[in-house]
């Protein structure tokens, strides 16, 4: 447990969390305008926290789990807006809650002590490799929310909308997931001598990529004939992402080349 009440960084995160939480509560109480105000405020504060971290650390803050979660928390609002505007996917209430949940580990669990970049991380590929994954992860998180919605929903029409929402989100996130994997492989070649090292984190990221690859093929084969299977695969994909992101970094049994990110 790392409380950050004694730093500006900490207060920015806590204020952003409060913004997201109030947006969630306002949304439940059907105060739409208030929800928007709190959601935008939460996003602004999370962005301020990210920029402050960038300045404080002196490098793109995507090195450790604290920085990654801060970045993920910041990306929720733009994703919500984009999905509503261009993909017709709603879900502001859940998105605000996800934003709050994502920021929680940054605010309370992970150490925020800025770290110097070890030689291996000093590459221009560092930022795009991690950033591609970050974008992909929040998109896939939203996809899995849509999938869970489909699995829990009773109404046929609503379930259909959720299924379509899942598919569109996966289509949006899959290229970024592929880009993250390929940039990682390219960087691996430059830094370690091989583009594939069979490292546990590499294998788990391959697993998440394969699950979505399976999802796309399955949906191509059967379309919307088995919507519950489609959704179940999408949820499995996100579970694989959670394992890639957290378990590999935190559990000692998976110690490997990516261990510096813990």
């Amino acid at each position, binding site marked *: 447990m790392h409380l950050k009440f004694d730093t500006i960084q900490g207060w920015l995160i806590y204020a952003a969390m409060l913004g997201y939480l109030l947006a969630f509560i306002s949304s439940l109480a059907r105060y739409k305008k208030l929800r928007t105000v709190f959601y935008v405020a939460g996003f602004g504060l999370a962005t301020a926290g990210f920029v402050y971290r960038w300045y404080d650390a002196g490098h793109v803050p995507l090195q450790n789990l604290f920085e990654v979660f801060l970045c993920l928390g910041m990306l929720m609002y733009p994703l919500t807006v984009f999905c509503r505007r261009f993909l017709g996917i709603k879900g502001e209430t859940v998105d605000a809650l996800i934003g709050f949940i994502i920021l929680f580990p940054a605010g309370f669990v992970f150490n925020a002590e800025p770290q110097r970049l070890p030689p291996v991380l000093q590459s221009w590929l560092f930022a795009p490799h991690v950033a591609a994954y970050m974008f992909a992860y929040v998109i896939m998180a939203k996809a899995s929310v849509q999938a869970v919605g489909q699995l829990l929903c009773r109404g046929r029409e609503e379930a259909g909308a959720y299924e379509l929402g899942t598919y569109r989100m996966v289509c949006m996130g899959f290229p970024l997931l592929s880009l993250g994997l390929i940039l990682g492989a390219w960087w691996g070649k430059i830094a370690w001598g091989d583009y594939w090292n069979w490292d546990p984190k590499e294998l788990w990221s391959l697993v998440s990529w394969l699950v979505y690859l399976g999802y796309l*093929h399955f949906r191509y084969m059967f379309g919307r004939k088995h919507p519950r299977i489609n959704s179940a695969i999408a949820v499995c994909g996100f579970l694989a992402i959670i394992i890639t992101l957290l378990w590999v970094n935190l559990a000692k049994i998976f110690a490997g080349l990516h261990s510096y990110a813990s």
Partner: protein
Amino acid sequence: MKQLRQVLLWAVLGGVTLLLVLSIIGAFLGDERARVLFNSLPLAVFWILLLGLLLAGLLYFKRLIRSPGLLGVHLGSLLILAGAMYGSDAGHALAAKLFDSKKIPSADMQIFESQTENHVMATGETHFSRLPFSVGLKDFWIEYYQPWPLIARTLTDDQDGRKKWERNIIHWTKGQEVAIPNTKIRLRVLEYLETARPIYAEGFGRVLEITQPDGKKTTIPAQVGQELVLEEPQLHVRIARVFSNLKVQTSGEEHQVVNVPGPPTNPALKIHIDLGDGQKTHRYVYPFRQMHDQEEDKFKFRYLFLEPEGAEHDPDSHQPAMEILLKYKDKEHRHWLIVDEGQHFANLCLDELLDTEVDEHEQHPYLRLNEPGQGEIREFKSDLVVLEEGQVVKSKIIEMNDPLHYGGYHFYQYKYDGRAGRLSPYTILSVTSDSGLTMVWLGFILLTGGVFWLFWVKPIWGYLRTRRSDAS
């Protein structure tokens, strides 16, 4: 045909699921065992089947050819798989059998500073192999994030009032005055040179000192070829060799004196002496002891390291230097802390300034310019040259994320002597074959381009066209 396509699609799902399960198993095994698993014979069969499946997909699904996005994704995957198989250990073994290729898939190479090497230890092998060219290491060094820290070792009182030694790191900034803990000394850093060489009053810092029978002393620079000729008593001395690290290697009955690369722990001079009486001898002289001086010797010889006067910037050096001003009571003292070649620190004894009484262990208070720790390392670098038939054909300073590429191999900064740190006399390079790499790179580009085309560019293009037609 429709049935065949259905079979292919189910085979794809089966293949993806199998690879997924194997990847999870591999993640639990750890990288080394996972590598063995994925390179095993059954998996080789699996990879070939997967390759066949991709080919069959391209042949039997016209959509995969007609859609640029789908074509990019599937052709890209095929190329990655084929390139990876070609570049694998098994691929190299097959190329050796079929085409008599001598390429080594991966290896380690240890090179000492100022030496060249073409021997490599291939991964998993116990004997050395040879590259068709040599690689030389001009220099290895470490760069740090921060200037070197200052450490003060001073006496303080413990809880019971007894004296005890304490080490403190002094957080210094050039030009600013700080206190040395547990003393009344104020310290100001006047100059800090990241890469410096010492300056000597006579232009050189190492000399051969010759003491004549009457006690008269003469010095000559400690360089090969330097000599001194005296008439009365007669002497002709000439420096034949300068050692930074003299060692005696014994092989059977033979003893050989060699200069071993690495930290200069045993500097010495080899001198030729002619006393004019028909006796011509040679002798080794050292800076710290005179074990070879004998009572009957008329002349005495010593290898002396002189105190430098100051320091100046030298881009070729990896030793820092710092000029400090110490203020104590009314006195001011200027000093240079110059880290000597092969040393991890430079000390300034504070005895005289503090008038401290030396304790029973003869410990002294000091100020030390000290090498930073591991966490402060910004980069390790090796200055490499590639030689073919004695000619330099390529040179590059490599570091993490910036390897050298030559002759079908990549050379990576991999390891060094961790205990010697920045004074490591050697570097270990990781050498990797580039076979199949072009195919893999092309596959990466096609796969990424294809997947973005399919899921981003095409829908955005469609969206914009719909908007335009709606507007018109």
